[in-house]
């Protein structure tokens, strides 16, 4: 208990003594975690959108007049990329068409014969395989035509790829900057306490005892940084979602509170973890070098 009080006491003394530096580090960490949060949330939303589309995505396959429907269905089912196949008879298709056209549909009856072919609704397993599946379907003898939202998917796919690689790059960059700044701040703190550390080690203080205030300093700076970042994110995401939903009401965005909360919690924990690791490395390196016997 005494030791805990001592550590906390000392931590705040360190923070007070180095308040300008601590504040600058905190702001940097907050900005970096905020950036990290924004990018992660954007990528989460793109993924969410893709997932939605994936579930909705169907490839329409129109068959030739005299095709053996059952055979084609079997063949298509054997393809790797396919998760589900449904065949639609000309009659069903006509019904659907009539449904969609409403009253005017009586007109279709005037034609007499049903002009629609058999068709298949093919569900793709993964959105990335849409193109290749469409191509494969197109090569089949019995297939007249293949229709799907190809270009749209491809664009989304690229966005998602870019978003993902962007996220990784930014993650590494932001992490690097944050780590470096925290590492250095703790190092400067350590140097400012050079004599104390030397005396403590000579007096018989354990390395842990010497190190804890500095580690806690790192955790507080980084943790507070991520907490501030989360407040910023809550505000920004809330207003961003509002604007987007007004402009593009059909866009499926992540608005579920538990999902968002979990993300924010993770970001804070991440901040704490980063502070912990950086200050730990900084402190243990410093102490092991300065207290090494010659």
């Amino acid at each position, binding site marked *: 208990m*005494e030791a805990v009080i001592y550590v906390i006491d000392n931590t705040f003394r360190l923070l007070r003594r180095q308040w300008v530096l601590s504040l600058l580090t905190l702001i940097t960490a907050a900005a970096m975690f905020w950036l990290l949060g924004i990018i992660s949330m954007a990528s989460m939303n793109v993924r969410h959108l893709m997932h939605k589309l994936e579930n909705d995505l169907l490839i329409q396959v129109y068959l030739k007049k005299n095709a053996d429907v059952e055979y084609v269905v079997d063949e298509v089912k054997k393809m790797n990329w396919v998760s589900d196949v449904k065949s639609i008879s000309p009659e069903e298709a006509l019904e659907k068409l009539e449904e969609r056209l409403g009253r005017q549909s009586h007109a279709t009856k005037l034609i007499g014969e049903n002009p629609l072919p058999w068709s298949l609704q093919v569900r793709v397993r993964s959105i990335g395989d849409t193109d290749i599946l469409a191509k494969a379907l197109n090569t089949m003898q019995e297939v007249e035509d293949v229709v799907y939202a190809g270009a749209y998917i491809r664009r989304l796919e690229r966005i998602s790829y870019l978003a993902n690689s962007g996220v990784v790059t930014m993650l590494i960059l932001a992490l690097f900057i944050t780590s470096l700044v925290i590492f250095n701040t703790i190092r400067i703190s350590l140097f400012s306490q050079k*004599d104390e550390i030397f*005396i*403590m080690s*000579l*007096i*018989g*203080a354990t390395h842990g005892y*010497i190190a804890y205030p500095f580690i806690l300093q790192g955790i507080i700076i980084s943790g507070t940084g991520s907490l501030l970042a989360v407040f910023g994110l809550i505000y920004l995401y809330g207003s961003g979602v509002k604007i987007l939903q007004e402009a593009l009401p059909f866009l499926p965005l992540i608005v579920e509170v538990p999902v968002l909360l979990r993300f924010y919690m993770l970001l804070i924990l991440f901040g704490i973890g980063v502070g912990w690791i950086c200050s730990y490395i900084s402190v243990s390196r410093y102490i092991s070098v300065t207290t090494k016997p010659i």
Partner: protein
Amino acid sequence: MKISLISVTKIFAPDIVALDNVNLIIKKGEFVYLMGKSGSGKSTLIRLITREVLPTRGKIVVGDVDLGKINKADIPFYRRDIGTISQDLKLIPKLTAYENVAFALEAMGIPHRYVKARANKVLDQVGMWRRRVFYPPQLSGGEQQRVAIARALAKSPALILADEPTGNLDAKTTEDIMNLFWNINASGITVIMATHNSNTVRDHHCRLIELQSGFVTRDARIGN
């Protein structure tokens, strides 16, 4: 605390021989003067005992601890039995006399309530209690030295290592400080004191070890 140095040689890179094949056995309760010119190896010998310096060759045993075999994690606990007063007086200027002493106790993990009583007691013992809330820069050299002694004494060590504790003090202050050390020794604590001022050596029951460029050139018991 008994201290044995067996064939201890310390060579600082690349080729500075600070101690050369030193053999010493210091018994519990002894008062040892470590004499010798500047650069003769006095500080090095002291720092070997605190394990700030490792011997190039030889073996050092303090109490029942073989310093060549001690675990890294045990070093802090080993040092808790030793009170050091270093040559370049290491008080923390940002802390008061009292805080400097209390800090040392707290760093060993001693509970707050004991720290207070103990710090006050040792400050009183060295005659610094009335100036306990002064900062080191506000204290004279002799007073600062007393605080450093109080800090070393605070943890009730079995051994006091003092490196030039009367370095830049006048004769009268030196006398006072020396009396403190004699009292400490009288309470059963082993004292090893490095000094190049032979005036500090008094006609007392003590041991005198003289170093000359790393060699022990004289080892005598005087005063009995």
